[in-house]
């Protein structure tokens, strides 16, 4: 007989909070904290993306000119 793997859903935060005895009010505070953390992370990501310099193109000619040793090694 083929064994069937039963996929169980992730436990919900609400059920977890209830099982651990977290009050509704504290649950809301933690949800707000998560929102704040995620928004902060989003801002950081956007900032990092704007600061990040574009990579120089991976070409043959430019890089070869900049490093003579490599250029020499690869030249005919």
């Amino acid at each position, binding site marked *: 007989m083929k064994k069937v793997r039963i*996929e169980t859903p992730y436990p919900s935060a609400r059920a977890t909070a209830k099982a651990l005895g977290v009050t509704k009010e504290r649950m809301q505070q933690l949800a707000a904290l998560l929102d704040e953390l995620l928004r902060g992370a989003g801002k950081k990501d956007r900032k990092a993306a704007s600061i990040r310099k574009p990579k120089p193109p991976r070409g043959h000619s430019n890089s070869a000119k900049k490093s003579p040793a490599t250029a020499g090694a690869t030249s005919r």
Partner: protein
Amino acid sequence: MFLALIAGLCGFGLRPRTTLELPGPNPRLDRILELIGACRYSFHDLSLIEVGRRGTPRFNMPFELGLAIGRTQRRKTAHEWFVFEARRFRLQRSLSDLNGTDPYIHLAQPQRVLVELTNALVRANRQPTIEDLTEVYHVLQRGAARIREANAGLYGARAFRDLVVLATNFVEHELA
């Protein structure tokens, strides 16, 4: 390390438990046995058995591991226990009765804790990626300061509950 374990377990859809969360008149030992009995898995990090400031080593972790093994053997339950260590081959010297058992070596690094959790739980029905678990860890890390502030510490019952709920909330919304 504490945060990495909570993040990793929540990332796998498990609900971390600790004796801290079970107040009541029962002795601590009864609460530990109750918890082991209620859980499918137990993770025992033996890397923190070190001599403290007062010169007394902490034996709680190996003792709890012994309780988990004893219970699993005696009752033939499906409980699975895992041993974590920071350094290779130290377990063979510190607890030679467990020779033949491969501990999960985390090198005292949170990222390695996550990696070793994925190794330990390779047969679990949910297999989050290391990136997923790292993301949960980073959220917990950022939220920990606020939770510490609100609970005057991170190693109490309420702080633990807050961390678990925060991690589960994130997993539910971002990974599920």
